[in-house]
Every structure is written in C-alpha cells, then in structure tokens.
C-alpha cells in the first residue's frame, strides 16, 4: 500500500514538475495560487478531516502568516539592501528571506498553540469551537483594519489597504549568493517544493501512531480519553501544526501577489476552505488539493464563460457533490478502485 502511494505520488509530482513547460505564464501563476490555497486546505483537513475539529480560524493564521512575512521581509531586506548599496551591488531585494519565511510559519503556529491551549483545555468543542475560531478570525481582521496609522519598523500596516510591494521570496546563501524568485516559473517550483514537503510531512504524521491517536479522537473521544490519552494535548499539537501550515500558505500567497490586506483573509476564505476540503474528500490529505484545484479551476473557467450565472452553477455543483458523494471526489475514486479490485474475484 505504501509503495503504491509512493509511486502514484511521484508520478503526480512529476506531472506538476512538467506542467509549466506546456502552460502559459498566466496559467503557471494560477497553478501556483491553486497550490498555495491547497496548502491552506491541507491545514484544515489535518485538523478537521483527521481530528474532527472544524476550525474557521485557518483564515486568521493564513493572514497572520502573510502579514508577518510582509512586515519582516520588508524590514529586514531594506537593511540588507542598504548594506549592499555601499558595494554598488544593487539587487531588487538584497539577501534571502529565510528569516521571514521561518517567522511567518512559527508565529501563527505559536498563536495557534496558545489559542489551542486555552480552548481545548477549557473543553471547548464542536460548534462552539467553530464559532469562537470564526469570531477570532473576524476580530483579527478588524484589528488589522483599524491599524491605519501604525507601522512596524519602517512598514506601515496600512489598515484596509494592506501592505503592497511585498518582495518575492528570495533563496540562496545569505550575504553571498541570493536569487529572488521573480520569474513565475521559478516561484512555481518553490511553491511546488513547499507543497510536496507539507504533503509528505502530513502523510507521515497521519500514518504514524500519533496519527492513529488523532483518528481515534475523531472516532471516539471518550474512549480514547479513558485509555489514558490526554486528548487535549494531542488537539493542541495538531492545531499548532495546522496553524503552521496555514501560515506557510499565507506567506506564499503574500509573496505570490506581493500584497496582503484584510480582504485577503475574510470570512469567505475560511468558508471556501471548508468547501474545498468537503469537495475533495475529508480526511484524505490529497483530497484537500483536489478540492481546491477543481473548485478554483471551475471558478476561473466559469466566470470567464458565464459572467453572471457562474456562482449559481458553482453552488449547484457544491450541493450535488455534498448530497450525492458525502466523501467527496476522493471518496468516488476510492470506491471506483475498490470495485475494480473486487470485480475479478466475483467472476
């Protein structure tokens, strides 16, 4: 089973490696965006699909990741830039952005951990958890909108207008060799790398004993607790990981559009993420990507062709999938595969 997964996964990755060679720049950009949003969906699938906790807070961690990246990258890069000016070595953005990337992942993770500690240790669960995380997302958005006058370092937060001219991610060896991923294709490969890494990490987590405890909590929390597992600890841990993933997605998004604003992580983003996971298939990891790809691709396609009616059609498709295939598209694929495996035995 593991081998099959590995082979299929490799083929899938290879396809994605080859895709930019045949696609136009516009579609390479779009593909990057789909993958970035896929990571966000993955973060929700980890906590919702595997542990059974529906969080509407992923949008907040997404935004947090974006803002932390924007603020730190712009602050740090300015200094580096000045240093290099004296060497007459003017680069668009001097130095690498590793620190910003790390901070933009760690900061949302820490916030998720603190939040998770207070919520899970207070035994908040189910609908109440949804509502609290939803309101926290809205509160965070409101706070950012109010911070028009403030600036952190040299960078104004900008309130509703957000932060613009955020530098692209830049890789290399600090102060020696760096390369900013301005080329959409290079940026795409970086995103693909992050996507693959997060998928592999999530897959490893979910298939370890730790993952089996997560599914045990989803399936029967009281039973798991009465076996001596401190379920709160596991919930906080998985919430932290999922916060880190959402932060990663946010920083990539911010770097992709070189822009972040409160509108980037409104309520609709959190709601859409839930839809992506549902469509793709809850608790399958890869389903998160399938869902986010398909939905966003259809959105793009339909909004071009049917300028007025596309939302209606999208809504119709969502309802049909949820009604007819509660396990999502991956559920359909699994069922097909099962029927293929089983059919020769009957003959």
């Amino acid at each position, binding site marked *: 089973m593991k081998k099959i997964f590995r082979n299929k996964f490799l083929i899938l990755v290879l396809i994605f490696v080859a895709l930019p060679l045949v696609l136009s720049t516009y579609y390479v950009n779009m593909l990057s965006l789909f993958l970035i949003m896929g990571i966000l969906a993955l973060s929700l699938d980890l906590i919702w699909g595997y542990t059974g906790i529906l969080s509407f807070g992923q949008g907040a961690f997404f935004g947090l990741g974006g803002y932390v990246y924007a603020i730190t990258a712009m602050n740090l890069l300015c200094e580096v830039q000045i240093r290099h000016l004296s060497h007459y070595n003017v680069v668009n953005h001097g130095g690498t952005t590793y620190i910003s990337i790390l901070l933009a992942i760690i900061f949302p993770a820490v916030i998720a951990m603190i939040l998770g500690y207070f919520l899970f240790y207070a035994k908040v669960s189910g609908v109440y958890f949804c509502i609290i995380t939803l309101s926290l997302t809205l509160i965070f958005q409101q706070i950012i909108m109010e911070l028009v006058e403030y600036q952190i370092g040299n960078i104004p937060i900008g309130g509703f207008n957000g932060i613009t001219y955020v530098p692209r991610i830049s890789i290399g060896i600090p102060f020696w060799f760096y390369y900013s991923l301005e080329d959409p294709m290079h940026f795409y490969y970086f995103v693909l790398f992050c996507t693959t890494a997060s998928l592999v990490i999530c897959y490893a987590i979910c298939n370890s*004993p730790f993952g089996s*405890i997560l599914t045990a909590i989803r399936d*029967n929390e009281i*039973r798991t*607790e*009465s*076996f001596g*597992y*401190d379920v709160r600890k596991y919930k906080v841990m998985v919430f932290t990981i999922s916060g880190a993933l959402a932060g990663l997605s946010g920083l990539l998004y911010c770097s992709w559009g070189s822009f972040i604003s409160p509108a980037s992580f409104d309520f609709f983003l959190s709601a859409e993420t839930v839809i992506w996971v549902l469509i793709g298939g809850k608790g399958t990891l890869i389903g998160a990507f399938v869902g986010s790809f398909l939905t966003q691709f259809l959105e793009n396609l339909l909004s071009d062709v049917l300028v007025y009616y596309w939302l209606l059609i999208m809504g119709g498709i969502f309802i049909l999938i949820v009604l007819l295939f509660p396990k999502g598209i991956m559920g359909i694929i699994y069922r097909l595969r099962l029927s293929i495996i089983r059919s020769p035995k009957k003959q």
Partner: protein
Amino acid sequence: MLETKNLTKEFDGFRAVDNLNFSLQKGELRCIIGPNGAGKTTLFNMISGFLKPTYGEIIYNNEKITRLMPHQIAQKGIIRKFQVPNVYNFFTVNDNLKIPCQIKSEGRILLFTHLSVEVGKRIEEILEIIELKEKGKEIAGELSHGEMQWLEIGMTLAMEPSLLLLDEPTAGMTRDETKKTGEIIKNISRSTTIIIIEHDIQFIREISREITVMHNGSILTEGTLEQIENDERVRNIYLGKEK
C-alpha cells in the same frame, strides 16, 4: 484497594448517589446489582473521572483520585468498559487494539516515531484471549454485538489494568455468548481486580462470590449470592412489596 467515603452526586437536587461508602479488596471480583436508577453507572462515572462528585472522596491505593481527569485515572490503572459497546467503529479490530497498546510508549508517539514489534505481539495475545483471532482485519463497526463487547473487553485488557470496571458486559448477548464472556472474565480475574455491574443473575451465579446491592444511590446490603437471594429487602426492591 478502592474506597469511597460519603460519596454523593446530585443532579439538580436529585441524589443519584447518596452517601456511598464502598470498599474493595485487591483481587476481588465484585458484582454490583440493583434496579434501574440505583446509581450504579453514576458510581462508575465518578470512579473513572467522567463525573465529579458533589462531595465525598474516592481513594485508590491510599491516594485521593476524586479530582483527577479521566486520562489521569486511566493511567493509574483504573480502566472502564462502557455500557453500550464503545469501540472505534471505523477502525479494524487490530487497529482498535493498537490504541490502548500504544499508551505505554506515549513519549514515542509524541515524537511521531513508529512503534516496536512488541505492540503487534501484544495484539496477537489479546486476540487469543477474546477469541477473535480470525477477525483481526474486519471493521469493528461490522462485528456482531457480542463480538463488539468482547473487543471492548480486550481493549481494556490491553491496558493491563489493575482495576477493571465492567458496565453490563453481557447486555444483549445470547446464552452462549454470555457463557463465553463469563469464562473470559474468570480468566481475567486471576490477575486483575474487577467490578461488574450486571442484571443477569444466572451470569452472576457463574462468576461472582461477593455481591453489592445498590438501591436509591446507596448500598442496601452486601454478601454472597445466597445471602442476597434470601434477603427480603432485595426481593422487595426488585419485585415490589407484598401487600
């Protein structure tokens, strides 16, 4: 080994358990009987930490466990089987047993590492005890009611409990299944202290020496089966008073 002192639980003024003083020696196999609403399951819920008593103490091995969380009590070795089969319905039988087997190496779980082969061996052993060896790869939710009960007993065994709380282990079982359950429980009781809540007198006759009768949240009487059967008060609460 286990002792409750003036244990009381009130639900909105109704006393489900009322000033209960119960004690249990190590190695005992104790049955608790009593009519519906006598407070038996509430007592189990308090011992295992799912309910906090209104007042009173629970003492286990000279240690107060009254205010501990369910998982802390489980780590002390008090493991509980629920009244309705409470297994992981979407897991296979093997995976069901894996969860309790893993708790001993929780430190390694938290580091996301994989576990040793010992867990697999332990699962095999338990499958043998509960006689579900051929069903290891079946989904637990598709087992028969009796098999699910055995699986849950097996899962509690995997924890190597020092005190086992069984809430109606034979509920909804056929005669044969009940008999087999009795044998399994007798086997376990050689190494473990057990408290059983049970209604089936036939079953109690087969396994138990000491019986506690509960009524209206407190202990009515304690003794051997013969003493209990000849006690007029017990007959009265079960059959109603003769007029």
